């Protein structure tokens, strides 16, 4: 069992407001880690520290350590472009670019310029296949991404993230805007993806966390209350608050 990411004593501030308090967590390679907790407890904030998306927000500050295969992610001089290439992200609301389906998948590759043009077609195909979208779009790759349904758009966003060949995939409530069928599709997909990627997923659905994840972390008011094997967290939580949350006694 290998640690892909090791978070130690992570504190995070929006201005004067402390959104994360002394977080310690080991993210295991090729596993799915689910993050649960009530709204506003800091789940999104936490995954945004891992690809430094918080850099885009003025007045934010992160202290402590996040080590990614031995690289310190909170290092001021870190090349965030390279980091975000290795740690991909899928957002809550599908956010394809107003471009063709193919252009969406190739976006990252074109920016990074590390895949020869002759391999682009193949990359589009494999990425869309991995996101189990290929058969639905193979004959309309040049159509606008906005012609797709919400669920298809979300899978396109997953394909787009996979095309840059990341090692870790961060997903912030990727199915919250989708219907049950589209959700089931993406959950199935995650099962496949974890063979190749390390996945961290934020979810509001206990069932989803229980179904798909190997590890679960429970956040409350910026603190990580409980973290461990999903089985244990759900069947035998050590903290009373975890139990209350999981059983829906507060929310």
């Amino acid at each position, binding site marked *: 069992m290998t640690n892909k990411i090791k978070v130690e004593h992570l504190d995070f501030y929006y201005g004067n407001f402390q959104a994360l308090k002394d977080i310690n967590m080991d993210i295991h390679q090729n596993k799915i880690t689910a993050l649960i907790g009530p709204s506003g407890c800091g789940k999104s904030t936490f995954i945004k520290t891992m*690809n430094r*998306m918080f850099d*885009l927000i*003025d007045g934010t500050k992160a202290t402590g350590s996040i080590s990614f295969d031995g690289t310190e992610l909170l290092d001021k001089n870190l090349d*965030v*472009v*390279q*980091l*975000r*290439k290795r740690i*991909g*992200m899928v*957002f809550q*609301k599908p*956010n*394809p*670019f*107003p*471009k063709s389906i193919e252009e969406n998948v190739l*976006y*990252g590759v*074109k*920016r*990074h310029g590390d895949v020869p043009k002759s391999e682009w077609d193949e990359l589009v195909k494999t990425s869309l296949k991995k996101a189990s979208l290929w058969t639905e779009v193979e004959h309309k790759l040049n159509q*606008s991404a*906005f012609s797709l349904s919400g669920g298809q758009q979300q899978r396109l*966003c997953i394909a*787009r*993230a996979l095309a*840059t060949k990341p090692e870790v995939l961060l997903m912030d409530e990727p199915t919250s805007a989708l219907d049950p069928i589209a959700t089931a599709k993406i959950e199935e997909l995650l099962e496949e993806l974890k063979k190749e990627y390390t996945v961290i997923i934020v979810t509001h659905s206990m069932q989803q966390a229980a179904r798909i994840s190997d590890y679960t972390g429970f956040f409350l008011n910026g603190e990580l209350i409980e973290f461990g094997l999903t089985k244990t967290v759900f069947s035998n939580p050590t903290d009373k608050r975890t139990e209350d949350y999981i059983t829906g006694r507060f929310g």
Partner: protein
Amino acid sequence: MEKRKRHQTEEKIIEIGLILVSTISILTTIGIVITLFYESYEFFMEVSMIEFFTTLRWAPVFDPPSFGVLPLLSGTLLIAVLSSFISLPLGLGSAIYLSEFASKKMRQLIKPLLELLAGIPSIVYGFFALTFITPLIRQILPDTSVYNALSASIAVGIMTLPMVASLSEDAMMAVPDSIRQGAYALGSTRLEVALHVIVPAAFSGIAASFMLAISRAIGETMIVAIAAGQTPTFTLNPLESIQTMTGFMVNMALGDIQQGSIEFKTVFVVGALLFLVTLALNFIAKFVIQKNREVY
């Protein structure tokens, strides 16, 4: 019941009022177009179209007169093209800076400044061109005429720049932030996000701002009348004195011309041509925008 009825009558009155108002502006436009083309028709009863569109001397008040419009057309296009070299790239550049690079504070400072700049009357730019830009050009290139196209173009470019910047920035800010975030999360630099995602996404708005700037340049009168000269010259040399279509019209309007005279009609025929050029430009722009539209 009563209340609902009253609402309905009210709405009806408002609707009729609005239709009336829009009819007035449509009728005015139609009236202008009819006058333009009627007087142009009269003009072409006296002057051949071939002379008008193919000969290179414009001297309608000379004896004998000549009516080759190409010098005026080339003058107008020269100003439009040269000023675009300034207003479009600098305007778009400013918009990119404002929407993607500038801090919120900076934006709040600069945006009203731009709008202020856009409100300066063009005659001020005209004098600025004549008394500041022209001497500067002549210092570098001493052979330049006192009145020249370059100076006027620079002033027109500076005048239309804030409009391009402001409208393009509006279009870029209208692109949803989620799209921006998506691009950053894939490992793009700020510049890549701006150039490869935001600008294409805001293309139709940006193109519209370009269009407006070029139309303003073509229609601009005061600056060219003051700084570009009054010599209809068929030339692409920006250092020479020229005359534009609008420059000619204002020049004629200032002198006293008799209604129904051929000089009188020239003003309308040039006006009609100006109208057609602007209309054509609008159609081209519509077409370009339609073809490159990206919805989100």
